């Protein structure tokens, strides 16, 4: 059987040579993403701004205008409607009254249920969330804290494990991935809720996974080819790991594709975020984080110094092999 190979053997693409272009493109896209986020803002869900979200399922696809008038007639403040995928499902968002707590939110849900049932017989509320301003503030704080801690924690790990250059380059690349994801949500105006924070954290985790594999190979090659200059060494490492990078991205995209198409509407935003993150993360692993090591002045000697310094590294080290096997 002839096996499938997505990437031909022994590729030799000059990624490092392209780095100035890649950096410029990356910087441009990142600025655009940040600009879009600041300018358009994120479509924050009730998790983060507080309020009441009702998901109504209709017997027949309803006319949105009619739903809107029904909601407006409730007189409980500015409502907004959103529809995704299934034309029979509409998401209604309403502000929560300042005072009154549970009773007031209850009253609104009941009022909405009554008005909707009168207008559209057979409608059901398949789910609803109410989040008070206080809790939503905490959720947003925890979400931001979680993402920041994850990025910083991982950067510190790779700094201790390798060189400081690795820490910075992964930090930069991951921040890029996170900002691009935010930009995507700003541009598409998909709802940004708690699930998306989980998606962002997963992107961070996946992206770092990708970078670790390449970084690890760079470190291995630094020991193996002490005389090689850094540019060819990084190119060699990225090319060597390229089949794996592509294979893994494709398998995960296959799995996520199944989730996007068949996983139901609740997870759609989540999956979209993840797919984008995989693409962006793979790009930044191949083009940005490894080439950045050169800009940061990593030298092959740095590896030796660290080895001599750290006993822990000695204990775990896989010794340089020179057994005649050459690429």
């Amino acid at each position, binding site marked *: 059987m002839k096996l499938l190979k997505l990437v031909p053997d022994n590729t030799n693409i000059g990624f490092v040579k392209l780095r100035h272009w890649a950096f410029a493109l990356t910087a441009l896209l990142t600025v655009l993403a940040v600009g879009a986020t600041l300018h358009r803002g994120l479509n924050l869900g009730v998790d983060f701004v507080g309020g009441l979200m009702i998901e109504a399922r209709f017997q027949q696809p309803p006319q949105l205008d009619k739903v809107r008038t029904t909601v407006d007639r409730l007189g409980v403040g500015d409502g907004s409607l959103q529809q995704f995928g299934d034309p029979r499902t509409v998401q209604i968002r309403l502000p929560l009254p300042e005072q009154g707590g549970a009773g007031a939110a209850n009253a609104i849900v009941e009022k909405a249920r009554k008005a909707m049932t009168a207008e559209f017989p057979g409608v059901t509320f*398949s789910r609803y969330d109410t989040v008070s301003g206080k809790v939503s503030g905490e959720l947003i704080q925890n979400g931001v804290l979680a993402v920041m801690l994850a990025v910083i924690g991982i950067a510190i790990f790779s700094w201790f494990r390798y060189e400081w250059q690795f820490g910075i380059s992964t930090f930069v690349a991951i921040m890029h991935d996170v900002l691009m994801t935010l930009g995507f949500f700003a541009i598409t105006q998909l709802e940004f809720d708690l699930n998306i924070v*989980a998606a962002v954290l997963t992107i961070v985790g*996946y992206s*770092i996974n990708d970078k670790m594999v390449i970084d690890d190979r760079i470190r291995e090659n630094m020991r193996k080819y002490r005389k090689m200059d850094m540019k060819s060494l990084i190119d060699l490492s990225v090319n060597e790991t390229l089949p*794996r990078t592509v294979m893994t991205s494709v*398998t995960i995209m296959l799995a996520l594709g*199944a989730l996007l*198409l068949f996983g139901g509407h609740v997870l759609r935003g989540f*999956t979209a975020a993840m797919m984008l993150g995989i693409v962006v993360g793979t790009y930044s692993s191949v083009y940005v984080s490894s080439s950045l090591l050169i800009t940061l002045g990593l030298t092959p000697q740095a590896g030796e110094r660290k080895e001599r310094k750290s006993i822990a590294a000695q204990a775990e080290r896989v010794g340089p092999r020179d057994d005649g096997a050459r690429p």
Partner: protein
Amino acid sequence: MLNFSRWAVAAILLPLVIGILCAVPSFLPDSAAEKLPRFMQTRVNLGLDLSGGSHLLLEASTQDVAKQRLTNMEEQVRTELRRGDPKIAVGDISSRDGKLSFMVRNPAQVDAAVERIRPLTQGAGLTGQRDFNVEVVNSSTIVITPTDAGINNAVKSAMEVATEVIRKRIDEMGTREPTIQQQGDNRIVVQVPGLQNPKALKDLLGQTAKLEFKLVDVNANPAEVAQGRAPVGSEVLPYPDNPSRVPVIAVKRQVMVSGEDLTDATQGYDQNNQAIVNIRFNGSGGRKFGQVTSQNVNRPFAIILDGKVLSAPNINEPILGGSAQISGNFTVESANQLAIALRSGKLPVALTVVEERTVGPQLGADSIRAGLIASLIAVVAVAAFMFFSYGRFGVYANIAVTINVLVILGVMGILGATLTLPGIAGFVLTIGTAVDANVLIYERIREERRRGRGVVQAIEYGYKEASRTIFEANVTHAIAGGIMLALGSGPIKGFAIVLLIGIATSVYTAVTFTRVLAAWWLRTKRPTEINI
């Protein structure tokens, strides 16, 4: 590296077999799973987003607790100083800024007053602190300040009682498998699966259910009462259903009997077929009630719930039997609810719902179905891709992934973890990343072959070199997962649990387990070429 003794193979396979066995109950229907022995009760719990149900986050106001404590303290001080012997006259009692202060009229009695008040305070915490500080300022004013330790203690015990009361109320509603947990200092999480309409639940939890019987002050001037002023010893309370159309009423401050003296409460009907709540007092409550009603025949008394007057019936004759009726514009449902609330006792502190998530059972069922279909398609697509890319080794990876999925379910069952909708996404993602470890190994084997190594050596090096990379990549991945678990709430946590378990099990199945398979193939077939 590739030589495994029989014992080693058994040791590697044993945890996988256990994991898979623990996953089995999750696939059985309810009836079959219940018959399994106790140690096999390892079904995965479904989160509310999958089973349908309500999640409520209730918050108690710590300020309320502090305020209430101060009011109680004031009451105690009054009683102690005015009724004790010798009587100590005080004035200017005020509780402002969370402190209680009052003046002792006779400066000579200040020390005696302090001596009498001290025993009212209690020790708080382990540091020997009291729950209130008693100080003398300006030689005649006594200031009682609650300490932080005292407030913390009070909040803690109030929350314990509140959690217990809520548990009782929900049990009385007959709900299936509710989860009631205290979260943080002043919050309680209530999760009730399979509830169609949580309105009744919220109404029930929103009631403090503080029941009091007080005499109506019939001598109060109605015009003044309407403006909110009451004579000394009385207070004005809201009375929404007042037949005289004035939504307030003046009642005596002194409590005849309170909800604490109840032994039972049930919903019933009065002679006009109107829904009421029948209550029964304990011995001392019945006696007190009998005594007051005998002395006040033909005068009205007020039935007060959570500071609002429900009704103010006339005392037609002394009520001596120890039981009474609460009337007040009830529906059968609301009377039943009040009966439940009264039976389970009053909440020591008012709770407000600060977060609610309700998922209808239909949507939950749809989500499970969609999640299962998506997972199956993902597995098939990834498996086919792996097979076409790596042939025999792809099959090994696929066996590993399948086992991995089962083991994750088994481990979740053992830990009693909850599977949520984002958790299903975590599953699908784990399927994707689990094969990453195999991809790393196989690509490395390809590389080593290209460098001219022999079959056995290439496989050996492939596993050895890739293992280190896999370890490091997964440690960093686990850092992200750990942070999600620690900081995340609700859905994020559900996702992080699957992710973390998946990281641990996937390293084991993808590296250790496939190595056993590869070694077994090498030993039995002794291949001279591998198609990878």
